[in-house]
């Protein structure tokens, strides 16, 4: 099963390039934040690839910071910018998240290493708890960041799809958002399964999530207007 992070990394970095290109062409803070969230996703899966070759505590901590703590929250932050256009609430939350992310970085970097026994043939998700010790604040932040990210990313995609369905407009965006919601739920469920002791499913859930969200993004951003005639202007 350890080939899965290779595929996830390839798909995710291709996804980062696609979203960042859209940001360069059209602007929009939501696209930039999604690109950032996906970059964190890709760094997390790349860490799994590296940890499949060799063990390094710093890489393990980067894996935890990006994959377990920050990815969902920053992806969800992009959705918040897309849905909350009025006022500066989205900006305020973004700065708050930036501060919390910095705190998370410090907490993970200073977390004491309790063991260096690591088996590269087993998933990192099975072993990280035995290698570095997370304090209560780190665990609390992990849970809160994931709840925030999942609620905003998945909830935002479901809400957007519902609006398109109710208005009967933009079918490709409606289906795209359904795929994004399903894709975002996949690693969220994988992470939750990890929490309840099912560690094997994380890599598969990451790959499924990356593929579904990428297809959903491509559908949602495809050109929808159809030129049917031209008249003299």
């Amino acid at each position, binding site marked *: 099963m350890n080939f899965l992070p290779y595929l996830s990394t390839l798909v995710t970095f291709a996804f980062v390039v696609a979203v960042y290109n859209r940001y360069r062409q059209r602007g929009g803070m939501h696209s930039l934040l999604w690109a950032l969230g996906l970059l964190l996703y890709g760094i997390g899966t790349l860490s799994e690839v590296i940890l499949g070759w060799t063990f390094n505590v710093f890489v393990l901590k980067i894996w935890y910071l990006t994959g377990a703590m920050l990815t969902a929250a920053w992806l969800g932050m992009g959705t918040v910018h897309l849905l909350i256009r009025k006022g500066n609430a989205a900006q305020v939350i973004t700065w708050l998240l930036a501060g919390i992310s910095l705190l998370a970085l410090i907490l993970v970097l200073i977390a004491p290493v309790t063991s260096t026994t690591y088996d590269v043939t087993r998933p990192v998700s099975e072993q990280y708890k035995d290698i570095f010790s997370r304090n209560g604040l780190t665990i609390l932040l992990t*849970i809160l960041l994931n709840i925030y990210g999942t609620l905003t990313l998945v909830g935002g995609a479901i809400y957007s799809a519902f609006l398109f*369905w109710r208005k009967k407009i933009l079918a490709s965006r*409606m289906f795209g958002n*359904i795929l994004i919601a399903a894709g975002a739920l996949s690693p969220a469920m994988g992470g939750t399964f990890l929490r309840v*002791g099912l560690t094997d499913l994380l890599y598969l859930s990451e790959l499924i999530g990356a593929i579904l969200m990428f297809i959903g993004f491509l559908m949602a951003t495809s050109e929808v207007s159809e030129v049917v005639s031209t008249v003299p202007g």
Partner: protein
Amino acid sequence: MATIHRSKRFNPNLMTEKIVPILLVILLIALLAVFVLIGLSLAGFFPTA
């Protein structure tokens, strides 16, 4: 030359009328299930976690 764009509305069919709402409800239930599992694990229902 100016262009005229067809309406972005789509014609309702079985897929959009019946299946999409079911998909949305399933996604919503899955989202709630994630939060329920997180809550249960925090409450100590999964000792292996």
